[in-house]
């Protein structure tokens, strides 16, 4: 009887340990000083992020989960060029503050907007961490999820309006395509584009399966603007 009870207690203790481990995992990854991360998950609807506002809210929510919710977070995304109203065009580079930005481990990935869009950029597989400090799967991993939604040129600006590369300004999972960068700076060829963190290639479409098909998972970059 006693032995049975002890084994039950032991099991309970083990369960508590497992649960405690989970709690520890959640609490351990507190990163209040973090100002840059890759979303650990997308919104689940491909490139339909609920527009820029939805993408920003996703950044904010993930940041809050690790104690960094007191900053203003923006997604690194451009809109389509609005040729009828050019002033309304949004460039990713203009919405992320001034830097420097550091990841969950305190590693600075860029000191300024110019630095971020130069060869001095420090985003790599090792530094392009999620809000939890996790490494994002890249080339050689299964599945490869290194494609980061940006809808932007290598300079972090919107594309000209003879193309539509933002899945209708991040509202569509079935019309258009977008452009992604490679967080691991690697691709299927040794070209400047494949090595680019912000503007490597187009997606097949805007759905979650389309994003997965070319090495993505609907992930994107988040930056603290202040």
């Amino acid at each position, binding site marked *: 009887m006693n032995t049975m009870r002890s084994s039950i207690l032991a099991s309970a203790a083990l369960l508590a340990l497992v649960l405690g481990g989970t709690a520890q995992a959640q609490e351990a990854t507190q990163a209040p000083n973090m100002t840059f991360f890759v979303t650990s998950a997308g919104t689940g609807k491909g490139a339909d992020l609920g527009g820029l506002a939805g993408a920003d809210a996703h950044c904010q929510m993930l940041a809050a989960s690790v104690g960094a919710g007191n900053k203003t977070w923006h997604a690194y995304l451009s809109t389509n060029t609005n040729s009828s109203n050019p002033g309304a065009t949004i460039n990713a580079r203009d919405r992320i503050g001034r830097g420097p930005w550091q990841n969950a481990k305190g590693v600075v990935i860029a000191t300024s907007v110019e630095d971020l869009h130069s060869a001095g950029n420090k985003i790599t597989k090792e530094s392009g961490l999620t809000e939890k400090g996790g490494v994002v799967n890249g080339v050689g991993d299964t599945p490869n999820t290194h494609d980061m939604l940006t809808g932007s040129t290598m300079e972090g600006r919107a594309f000209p309006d003879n193309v539509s590369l933002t899945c209708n300004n991040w509202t569509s999972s079935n019309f258009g395509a977008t452009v992604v960068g490679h967080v691991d700076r690697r691709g299927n060829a*040794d070209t400047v584009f494949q090595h680019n963190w912000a*503007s490597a290639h187009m997606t097949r479409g805007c759905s979650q399966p389309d994003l997965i098909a070319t090495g993505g998972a609907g992930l994107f970059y988040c930056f603290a603007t202040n």
Partner: protein
Amino acid sequence: MHSSVRLPMLAGVALLALGGIAQAQQGPQAPNMTFFVTSAGPGKGADLGGLEGADAHCQKLAATVGAGGKTWHAYLSTNTNAAAPDKTVNARDRIGKGPWQNFKGEVIATSVDDLHSDNNKINTNTGLTERGQRIPGVGFILNAHDMMTGSQPDGRAFPGNMNMTCNNYSSSNFGKVEVGHVDRTGLADTAQAHSWNSSHQSRDCSQEGLISTGGNALFYCFAAQ
């Protein structure tokens, strides 16, 4: 009695059929034409069999109106070949020097630079097929004004981070293709909508995808010499 009636009838039907084909082939002749819009695409969306297939399509259509003696090239750019930049093909570099004239002898541009300037004369009245027909554009029930080019406004390939050529015109199911508006008219009053060669990308590379955004897998052909 029966056979004598049947014979003339059969002969008549046969003559009519032959006559129809012969007339279609011999009707419009345009030996001096050096520019046209394809009256039809190859039928597999933006899969044209590569640049070679597209050029052959131009050549074949030109031959049907007596203009097969020239070397015809499709106005198409390839994707940028970032690994071997000199293998990148720009539409503007493969169409000769001009001037180019349509089925009616109207000059649509005098040079490559003229073609890619505001002075370009391509419009709904001059952008004729090899048979001298206009393309239904904005306002028509079956708007087919989208001309595949895979090119930027200057007639060059898009940067290497973009696939705007349906895998160099070899795919009807992967990627997009950039198109221009032969009628210089689109949904909005913007420079892009008025562009003859770089208005917007297609939904996808299938025939249905091209049709859905105002196209029919048509493209421009130029006599390179």
